[in-house]
């Protein structure tokens, strides 16, 4: 018991082992933190077991054990590779078109005023169909624009003046056009904040 405990302590304070574990720690930063901790502990236990099996903890023995373990970067790469097959291809297949889709939705929403109202509606449907935003973001994004514009409408009407040749329809078109722009602006900001890595 005490021999092994002593071994672990000696091992942990050993410069070579510390450096090795540091490299593994750095190389595995892309792993989920729980998985990373587990990997480090597995490797540390392995070193401990190997030194016990070798019956020594001098530098030569330690170097030999680490040599057999392989470069920390290889271990980290293997860990990333093993955790990736389930998620990475799926993420790659979904995330990229998903982002492209989201961008198209935003553009349609922003320039929807070209085909009044209908353009906005198509944009809104596309945004709703995209999974680049949460439901909360979608609702907020699609509601924010119209709300802002409804709030601004009285002022707009005043600014234009009663004598102007703008009818209700023109105002509605104008308002909805700006609404689309506001929505698109908000949603693109959300997209940037939550998906920086996906770029």
């Amino acid at each position, binding site marked *: 018991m005490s*021999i092994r405990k002593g071994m*672990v302590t000696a091992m942990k304070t050993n410069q070579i082992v510390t450096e090795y574990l540091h490299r593994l720690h750095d190389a595995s930063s892309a792993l989920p933190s729980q998985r990373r901790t587990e*990997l480090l502990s597995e490797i540390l236990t*392995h070193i*401990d077991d190997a030194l016990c*099996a070798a019956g020594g903890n001098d530098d030569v023995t330690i170097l030999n054990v680490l040599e057999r373990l*392989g470069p920390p970067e*290889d271990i980290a790469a293997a*860990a990333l590779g093993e955790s990736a097959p389930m998620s990475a291809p799926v993420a790659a297949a979904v995330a990229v078109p998903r982002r492209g889709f989201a961008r198209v939705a935003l553009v349609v929403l922003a320039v929807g005023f070209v085909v009044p109202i209908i353009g906005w509606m198509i944009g809104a449907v596309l945004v709703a169909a995209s999974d680049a935003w949460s439901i909360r973001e979608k609702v907020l994004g699609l509601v924010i624009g119209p709300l802002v514009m409804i709030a601004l409408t009285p002022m707009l009407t005043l600014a234009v003046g009663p004598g102007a040749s703008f009818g209700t329809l023109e105002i509605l078109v104008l308002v909805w056009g700006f609404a689309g722009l506001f929505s698109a602006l908000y949603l693109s900001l959300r997209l940037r904040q939550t998906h920086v890595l996906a770029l």
Partner: protein
Amino acid sequence: MVLGETRKAVSQLRRGTLEFCVLALLRDGERYGFDLVRSLSEVDGLVTSEGTIYPLLTRLRKEQLVTTYWRESGAGPPRRYYQLTDAGRAALDDFAVEWIRFRDAVDRLLDVNVDSEGDGDRHED
């Protein structure tokens, strides 16, 4: 160049079969991590870096081909033991059948090539 191709092919074969070698080592009973890793690395040409086996063990655990449990060791910290599950045993049995078929097929092809080149201008040095 040709050597590189060979190495690549062998490394892919190794990667594909390694997990079944792990399962095979567990066929006759549970083993703890270090023991398992050392047994694998002692097979010639199977493992280049012992450390890369641990991520593989994690995946096998996630895929429920093995289960693990912690057991106190007489001296020192508790050890994580690996044990084959029923699914793991079934995967191993399936693989064993396929592997023999694959191995025999490749062996036959390699033998045929040796024979057709053979006799007349076979270089032996």
